[in-house]
């Protein structure tokens, strides 16, 4: 095949050089919106350019100033301020952002993901591992301190039990101080067992029912796949693994070093050996599951609610309503999904503050336009900003062009799959997106049928069976079209039928006994893990990598060159495809226009990609990683609800010459459901009626006082203050009848002195009658 190199170099929108000719100039796939590309895995320049923009999205902006602040220092801010810290911007669909906010004195962690793409620095287990137990030396990387300008060699991959990279900055926070954890997607949950197993962890974890279930399955699968390594490398070393020695790290290729240490070289502390199955179990026991739009009240103060985000089945955006402010946490969202319930953006209206945390766009746009921070996007949005019509905004948001585009991509993938199997090759799909897998299953089976091909489809994963069954019992979480199937009594997804017809076979592992019995090639196999380091995919990829008719389908945003390194040289074709992973940039502004927040917390990285017209009423705060932003509150006062029966008890005094009434209020105070309430208590009913005023204002006129006292039968005489230095400005009334007493009167105070209680209270009555009081 002469085309090897050339065909790898084809542009992002090129046709796969498959034998199927009809694809060429046809409509759908030729349009520039299709971002699938077929490439050879041989370290072609294309793959290099592929990685470029992905990395740059997190590093090139000169506006970002990195400061790692110890969060403790921000504690002293007054509580009117909400504090926001972005702990990680994340990377892609599989590694969502992670933030921590402080609201009404409560610390809330938003998501707890794992950076699983960093697994790629490890070597997968060799295929011969199980037949040939001879272990390769873990540090066979002998070529020390080489300068790695040239492409990295697969021998440089770390041969050791992999460790997992968590969000490093999270470790700076004191875990027992976290009050609430909100999880928005299964991906945002994968790091949770690391947190929940910490001694003193006491936070409430809120997750939607479906995310909890899927997240648990993914974590269990991860633990199981990781076990294979343990069996291979033997028991884990105690303490730090050898590859983490500073010397060893120095000798790593620079790309690896950057993955291990981060750009600032501070991320080594984020690496951990994977949690155990028991950690996962313990974590799940601490999780509180919710339905969409179910309100929970945390500590009587915060009302927390999950609303669908459309990204995947069960994923959500969170709203947090406190007495001082309403916050919407906007994660990656999709307006029109063909499997999950759509992005419910209406539910985010009426919040003062939006934490915009959908960082999926740059990756998409970069790859598409092959340039960083593309100008066209911002132009697009600026033309939109001129348009003030809300309805037009809504229309734009709901336009189905995105989902059509996605459908075209899937159809294109299907056509490539059909071409491969027709040529006798097998197809390997390690994509980890449930929605994509479910749709591909349906489309592939239709395509196979249309081409009258009898090629089996396999799903090999320890959790696939349960996951598939699960998707057919959760109509409440699916998109409208799928829900309709419930009402007509059909299964929501086709896989049930496919399994029944024996077109689809689900196995927990490659060595499942029944798998060998029915295994047949060519076939189409779905299998984790997308990092190509763990799970059944490693075995299958090794098996087919040399077959030029076979096809591997990967996702863009994954470093293909690095991912495929252990499988070189590869004859197998590779199709890389990007999928919609969030809100497109041109939709950001129309969306905000509809949501009408007062403040927006916006990622600094996206600042220049979205331009704003002056007509916007909301103020922007731009955030970077590891920087704490204080966000002022709009409301200075809170609202108090007073029970009507309590109000009726109040004795209202009218202030003279003013239309103001004032009255003393006493009741049982409570904070429930984010509201301050004053109920009629048990005791104040009668006591409030007859109580003397406690607070006085105005000045006391002596002549009037004497007159009033006289009427009560109390007589006295006025005497100017004497030698007492203290009472210089004091005037004194000496009472001599009925008993001796003394009234000391100053500008702002009066002292009543009598040896007898009743006289004292009579004098007070007189004083009270002249002063104003409450």
């Amino acid at each position, binding site marked *: 095949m002469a085309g090897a190199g050339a065909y790898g170099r084809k542009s992002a929108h090129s046709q796969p050089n498959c034998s199927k000719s009809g694809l060429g100039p046809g409509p759908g796939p030729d349009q520039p919106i299709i971002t699938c590309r077929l490439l050879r895995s041989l370290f072609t320049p294309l793959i290099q350019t592929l990685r470029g923009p992905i990395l740059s999205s997190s590093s090139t902006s000169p506006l970002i100033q990195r400061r790692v602040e110890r969060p403790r220092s921000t504690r002293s801010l007054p509580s009117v301020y909400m504090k926001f810290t972005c702990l990680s911007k994340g990377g892609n669909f599989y590694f969502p952002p992670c933030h921590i906010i402080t609201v009404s004195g409560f610390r809330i962690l938003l998501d707890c993901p794992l950076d699983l793409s960093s697994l790629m620095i490890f070597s997968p287990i060799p295929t011969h591992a199980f037949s040939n137990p001879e272990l390769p030396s873990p540090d066979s990387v002998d070529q020390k301190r080489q300068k790695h300008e040239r492409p990295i060699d697969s021998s440089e991959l770390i041969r050791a039990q992999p460790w997992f990279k968590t969000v490093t900055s999270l470790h700076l926070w004191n875990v027992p101080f976290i009050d609430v954890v909100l999880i928005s997607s299964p991906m945002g949950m994968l790091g949770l067992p690391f947190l929940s197993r910490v001694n003193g962890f006491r936070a409430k974890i809120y997750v939607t029912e479906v995310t909890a279930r899927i997240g648990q399955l993914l974590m269990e699968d991860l633990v199981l796949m990781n076990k294979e390594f343990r069996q291979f490398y033997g028991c884990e070393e105690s303490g730090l693994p050898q590859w983490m020695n500073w010397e060893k790290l120095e000798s790593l290729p620079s790309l690896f070093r950057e993955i291990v240490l981060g750009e600032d070289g501070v991320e080594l502390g984020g690496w951990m050996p994977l949690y155990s199955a028991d950690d996962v179990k313990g974590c799940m026991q601490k999780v509180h599951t*919710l*339905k*969409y*739009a*179910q309100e929970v009240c945390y500590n009587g103060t915060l009302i927390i609610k999950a609303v669908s985000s459309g990204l995947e089945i069960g994923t959500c955006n969170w709203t947090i309503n406190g007495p001082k402010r309403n916050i919407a946490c906007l994660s990656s969202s999709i307006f029109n999904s063909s499997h999950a319930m759509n992005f419910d953006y209406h539910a985010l209206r009426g919040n003062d503050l939006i934490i915009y945390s959908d960082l999926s766009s740059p990756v998409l746009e970069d790859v598409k336009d092959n340039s960083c921070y593309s100008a066209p996007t911002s132009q697009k949005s600026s033309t939109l900003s001129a348009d003030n019509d809300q309805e037009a905004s809504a229309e734009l948001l709901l336009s189905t062009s995105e989902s059509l585009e996605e459908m075209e991509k899937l159809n294109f993938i299907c056509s490539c799959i059909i071409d491969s199997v027709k040529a006798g090759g097998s197809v390997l799909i390690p994509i980890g997106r449930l929605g994509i897998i479910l749709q591909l299953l349906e489309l592939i089976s239709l395509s196979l049928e249309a081409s009258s091909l009898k090629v089996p489809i396999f799903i090999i994963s320890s959790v696939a069976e*349960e996951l598939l*069954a*699960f998707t057919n*019992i*959760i*109509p*409440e979480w699916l998109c409208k079209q799928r*829900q309709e199937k*419930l*009402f007509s*009594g059909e299964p929501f997804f086709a896989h049930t039928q496919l399994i029944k017809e024996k077109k689809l076979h689900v196995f927990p592992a490659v060595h499942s006994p029944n798998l060998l019995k029915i295994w047949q090639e060519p076939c189409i196999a779905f299998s984790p893990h997308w990092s190509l380091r763990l799970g059944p995919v490693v075995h299958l990829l090794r098996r087919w990598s040399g077959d030029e008719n076979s096809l591997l389908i990967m996702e863009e945003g994954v470093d293909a060159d690095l991912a495929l390194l252990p499988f070189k040289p590869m004859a197998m074709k590779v199709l890389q495809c990007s999928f919609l992973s969030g809100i497109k940039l041109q939709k950001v502004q129309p969306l905000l226009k509809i949501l009408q927040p007062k403040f927006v917390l916006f990622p600094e990285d996206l600042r220049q990609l979205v331009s704003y017209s002056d007509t916007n009423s909301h103020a922007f705060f731009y955030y970077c990683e590891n920087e704490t932003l204080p966000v002022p509150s709009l409301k*200075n*006062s*809170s*609202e*108090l*609800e*007073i*029970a*009507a029966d309590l*109000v009726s008890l109040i004795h*209202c005094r009218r202030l003279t010459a*003013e239309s*103001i*009434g*004032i*009255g*003393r*209020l*006493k009741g*049982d*105070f409570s904070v429930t459901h984010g509201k*301050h309430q*004053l109920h009629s208590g048990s005791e104040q009913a009668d006591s409030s009626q007859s109580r*003397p005023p406690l*607070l*006085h*204002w*105005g*000045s*006391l006129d002596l002549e009037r006082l004497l007159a009033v006292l006289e009427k009560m039968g109390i007589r006295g005489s006025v005497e100017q203050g004497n030698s007492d230095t203290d009472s210089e400005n004091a005037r004194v009334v000496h009472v001599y009848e009925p*008993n*001796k*007493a*003394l009234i*000391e009167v100053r500008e702002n*105070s*009066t*002292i*009543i*002195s009598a040896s007898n*209680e009743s006289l004292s209270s009579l004098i*007070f009555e007189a004083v*009270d009658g002249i*002063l104003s009081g409450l």
Partner: protein
Amino acid sequence: MAIECLVLGAGQEVGKSCAVVTINGKRIMFDCGMHMGYLDHRRFPDFSLISKSADFNTAIDCIVITHFHLDHVGALPYFTEVCGYSGPIYMTYPTKALSPLMLEDYRKVMVDRRGEQELFSNDDIMKCMKKVIAVDLKQTVQVDKDLQIRAYYAGHVLGAAMFYAKVGDAAMVYTGDYNMTPDRHLGAAQIDRLQLDLLITESTYATTVRDSKYAREREFLKAVHKCVADGGKVLIPTFALGRAQELCILLDNYWERMNLKVPIYFSAGLTIQANMYYKMLISWTNQRVKETYATHNAFDFKNVRSFDRSLINAPGPCVLFATPGMISGGFSLEVFKLWAPSEMNLVTLPGYCLAGTIGHKLTTGKPTKIDLDKDIQISVRCQIHQLSFSPHTDAKGIMDLVKFLSPKHVILVHGEKPKMASLKGKIESDLGIQCYYPANNDTVCIPSTCWLKADTSKTFIRSSLNPNFKFVKTISEDKSNLVSKETEATSVLQVHDERVAEGILIVEKSKKAKVVHQNELLLMIGKDKHDVQFAYCCPVQIGNLERTKGMDFALSKNVVSTSDECSWLHLLFAKLATKLGGNIQDFGQHLQVDSIHISVCLKDICPYRTTDGPQKEPAVFFCCTWSVADVNLAWEIISIMENLDLSII
């Protein structure tokens, strides 16, 4: 503000549930059922009472349907497609999925078998259901700006829900039918503790208290097992949904356990199709059934097959589920005719059968013959088993729910009048909650909660949030040996938390009311404070100095020197502390209880010393000041001090 409840159905009866409730101007129709016992106009609620002009779209803000039983949903297609209501309708996902099956089944029975004119067509059912908005449990649904509804799990049948509705400050719950104990496939009703003005609850079993249902389930299984073991046939007439699945799970499990091979049949395709729905909606069942979804869905019945008409006369034992329930006609009647004459066979019937059905005749007497019509007579020799478990809560369950929710008012519906009267009495006497059980077409009016909303200051909130702890602790210093062991022993820390908020409400014309802390008021109204205090310089006897042995005080007459000041104060403190308990505090230079401040007075002439009568023998003076809040306590202390002799230990 008031809540108005117009009962259009299920008032002092069971059937055609329909309550129209007006809360703060919003009008909600809860359930829209039909009465199966009537064939005339009485079968539907009298909708004309809602709107004379039949303009239902302006008269009603939304309809909420609790579950798929016809006495709750039966009139809905009529109301939407014939009466023309086109506003929002809410029900849970299962209710939306299963209601059309029930409605269509009923329509078919009416039209095809009884030859009646149809009240709504199949098309009407479909169109009606298209308008329904499905909701999930616990999901807060914003119907409009002011009206919020939420569904809670009710047990009873798949998808049955109680509905919470809130408009402004007023809130209520309408239960529909519910079950407080779990059954074979459903969980027990579940609801949050809510602040409610009104609870409208069903009261089918207003006076019955049931024991464990497991015993009664065993009874049923035993009867069925015995019949098939003897080679008989079991006929179980049921409606396609609900009871059929519950009994099926029961039998399927039992068959597994006992390793029985006798076939279990479902008569119509309808029930098989219904099982398909149940499989997809398994998350609405109870925990145990729910967990079977991945490995073996509990509604994938292993031993159940569909029935073919030719099997009616086939030899050998079998169990057959046939529709409709109560043997009101159709296939179950057809089979009954053939199986009833043999004493080997068994017919099981639900506890409650509508009058006029064969089921009713079989359960009320022990007839040996039943006249089907003038010409046909069926001889009944088979055994009859009456199921004694019901998917409704019993009286204890109703009381538990009412007690748990503690609403301000209760309205009973969906029950029999005399039993409702007795339950009303119980609710009012045992729980002290006002209770009503209006008849159909009656309206009940109740007052609703109202909150005055005021802006409030940070200081007020902070002062209210601070637990109002009163720490009471004696500070005893070593330099003075005056404090006896005895008083030290009483100096334990005592804490009181009086979390009562006190503030000042300020109402100004055309402005939102404001609540502030007392200290903020004067600033707000621009006035200067005038401090009113009380003072009294109180003499305390120190008696004969000889008796204060070991105490080395230099005493001039009536006056103590500065160095002894503290000692006298400590002495007084010790005395007062034993009399007053822990509230008094010793600050070294003075003692304090709330605003009451006591210190030794060293002045020769104190203005607050009222030297009325002759001076008593040796005394120490203590200057006391206090503010009006503590007047009573201050005089109490003074009277203690005046009767004290500090020299007596």
